């Protein structure tokens, strides 16, 4: 194999375009084992990720499920007009962006902080206990988690009782009934739920850092915080950036369950996001076309965001997706 490669290399170097094709096919034949192995995955990708794109046609139809493709009524951009023309669309979009940004920023800052702190813990038993406790909420389904949050924040819940006992409140407060508090409650809930889980990948990245670097820093007189700042953080920077780029692509996905389960009429101005809007006016009314139109919009925006983030990372000379 090695010999073959070495043999083709010089001949390829001096060739013009058609020879480039020749070289391509020659390499294809040489690497046939690899190519054959990748075929099932390419097929899978095509069948499950590209074929469904055909369904985007639904967005331009007045789609009725039981009818065949050619019996559908075509309506052009009507569903997009309904979506973008709705006065609530801007509000819903704002909520989506705010909540996913909250998710992004809080998720990153808290998880990295906790990972840094855990990395410094020398008492192994304590570290494991903290990790296990902080992972646990991740495994509770949102339905149950929302139940817990509702119970805690209820008028006869622990938060109200505590604040009343401390004399900070005169009368019980309906926490979930105050619209502009919703984002705060949402932020706190997701931090509580996913903090521990999010640290895993950073902790893993930290184990990859060469211990020699720490030793060298120690020799130079670096303290704990200096080591964190100058070695641990730069060491996991590539991971942080790749994760950031990927998450920016999901900026229009602010989650569905927490908003749906914790939302109610009183906080709807702050809790209703794009997904819930689509559920209400799309799926619940059998208007699949509107749902598809909204998901097309989301895909396009996500695409732009992903490319932009990757491009910026490239410009800054950082690690990137591709």
């Amino acid at each position, binding site marked *: 194999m090695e010999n073959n490669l070495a043999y083709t290399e010089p001949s390829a170097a001096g060739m013009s375009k058609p020879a480039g094709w020749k070289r391509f096919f020659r390499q294809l034949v040489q690497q046939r*084992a690899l190519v*054959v192995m990748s075929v*099932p995955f390419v097929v899978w990708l095509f069948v499950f990720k590209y074929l469904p794109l055909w369904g985007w046609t639904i967005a331009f139809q007045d789609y*009725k*499920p*039981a*009818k065949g493709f050619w019996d559908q009524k075509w309506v052009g951009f009507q569903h997009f007009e309904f979506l973008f023309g709705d006065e609530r669309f801007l509000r819903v979009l704002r909520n989506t962006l705010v909540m996913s940004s909250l998710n992004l920023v809080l998720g990153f800052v808290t998880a990295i902080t906790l990972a840094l702190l855990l990395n410094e813990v020398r008492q192994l038993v304590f570290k494991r206990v903290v990790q296990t406790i902080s992972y646990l909420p991740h495994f509770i389904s949102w339905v149950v988690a929302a139940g817990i949050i*509702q119970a805690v924040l*209820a*008028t*006869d819940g622990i938060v109200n009782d505590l604040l009343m006992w401390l004399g900070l409140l005169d009368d*019980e407060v*309906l926490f*979930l*009934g105050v619209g502009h508090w919703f984002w705060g409650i949402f932020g706190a809930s997701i931090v509580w739920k996913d903090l521990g889980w999010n640290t895993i990948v950073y902790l893993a990245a930290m184990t990859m850092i060469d211990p020699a670097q720490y030793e060298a820093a120690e020799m130079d007189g670096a303290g704990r915080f200096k080591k964190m700042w100058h070695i641990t953080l730069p060491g996991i920077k590539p991971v942080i950036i790749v994760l950031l780029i990927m998450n920016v692509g999901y900026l229009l996905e602010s989650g569905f369950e927490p908003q749906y389960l914790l939302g*109610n*009429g*009183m906080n*709807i*101005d702050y809790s209703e996001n794009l997904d819930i809007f689509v559920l*209400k*006016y799309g*799926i*619940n*009314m*059998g*208007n*699949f076309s509107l749902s598809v139109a909204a998901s097309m919009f989301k895909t396009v925006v996500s695409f732009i965001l992903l490319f932009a983030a990757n491009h910026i990372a490239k410009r800054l000379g950082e690690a990137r997706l591709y």
Partner: protein
Amino acid sequence: MAKKKWFASMIALIMALSMIVTACSGKKEAAESSGEQPASTGTAGSNTGEQPPDKVTFRIFNGVAGEKDVNTNETTIGKMLEDQTGVNFKIEHLVGDLNTKIGTMVAANEYPDVIIPDAGINQLLDAGAFIDLTDLIEKYGPNIKRVYEPYFNLMKAEDGGIYFLPFSTVVNGYIPDPNINQGAFWVQRRVLEWAGYPKINKVDDYFKLIEDFIKAHPNENLTGFVTLTHDWRFFATTNVPNHLAGYPNDGEVMVDMQTHEAKIYAGTDYEKRWFKLLNEINAKGLFDKSSFVDNYDQYIAKLTSHKVLGFFDYGWQIGSAQNALRDAAKTDPSQDGYRYFPLPVTFDGGKDQYLDPPGFVNNRGFGITVSAKDPVRIIQFVDNLLKEENQILVKWGVEGETYLKDENGRMYRTQEMIDKMNQKFLEDYGFTVFDWDWPQYGTNSTLADGNAASPGLQPEVFQLSLTEADKKILSAYGVKTYAEMFAPPDNRPWFPAWGIQKEQGSPPQIFEARKTELQRKYIPELVLSDPAKFEDVWTKYTTELNKLDIAGYQQWYTERIKEVVAKAQGK
């Protein structure tokens, strides 16, 4: 190299083989199921003779949540029906959200044999999920015809087909329900007893009574009034002004008796008056603020907590709470005071219309889907079910076991029979399985011999079901049944207006979604805000509401109602 080649070709071979195998097995299944069909139809056609029909199980999806999934032949009644027809139904109830569930079925174009879609029926009709039953009824359904023929005009879809069988037919004479399954203002019995059974028919008196009672019992941590707002049950909060104004539950509209003009009551002075009242109640600390965040289970739990004095709701929504309280009072009569008593409350004590007029609900029903393996067997089962003797079986049970007949042919139940009929017995026997969700003699029907079709409506049974405490409170008000507390319903041929079908995603449907959304947002604010700010909130709410196409919605409803009236008169 040779080894590698061998490996690669092996993999290729295995993949190819597995593909062939799956393809073949798929075909085989299809062939089997299609082969099955003509065979069973053949036997079904010939089973009019004494030959016992071969057994078959159909799947039913029932869009109502919170009931047990059963095979009908596991119940006593279901077993008898299986012996007659050979048909068993495997009933699956809703878990989660109805529209999502039905949407998924529609998207996959794959359905159980029968669907009872509750509120999700339009989506299925739109998708063409139900088959037209006209010919099947003509061929196999003499009893279906007998029960439903008077309603055929109303049941026909625009294309003239009949796609589902509704439940609220009245066969023979009409018998009113002695219990209150419909809307009412409820109050704890101990409150009435404490006040010496006053006559309450004004909403101001109602709240005054509750307020006085709480003042007299300051240390009991009592709640004056709660309201149900969870999910689709939100109408228990929004419908109230309509009832207080003296109209029955027509949904979102009040329909004029003479002109048949439909008008919404959201944003009217009626609504303002009601929420202003609640606002005052809240300012006095009598209202339970969590009403606006509680879910249905929490609400029911509150009703059984003994702490809630009053609420407005429909009887059928609070059945589980009432049963729990009744059972507790049966074992310990001192708990009777915690049960709730219905009151016919209106704004000014005028004539109430809480009781449903005889009506025909045309957007709930039992439909056979396009995926059904054998519609003929299903329709034959339904026809058999609608025979008079089988209607007696599913509603009254077996003579000697669950009912008796006196020398005049009047059917009744003994105290002993009534006592043994707890929830478990009803489930095992099959009464709960066959109660509302099947083609049937509607609740208010009578049998050919004059007995009530539903035991609960038979006066003899109702009187026996009353406890001493029940009799005491009823006689204090000089009535024999709960229904007598209320004014008899006026005749409204279009009733209920909410039963008129709206197309998926049509303007009236979008209007309702938007209107409800506004109400969800503003009603809590109206009720919970500082009384001084009430006017501001009200102005904001009505400005938002008036941006919607109210006129178009009312016009749509008025037209539909006039159509129904014409159809009903033209039959």
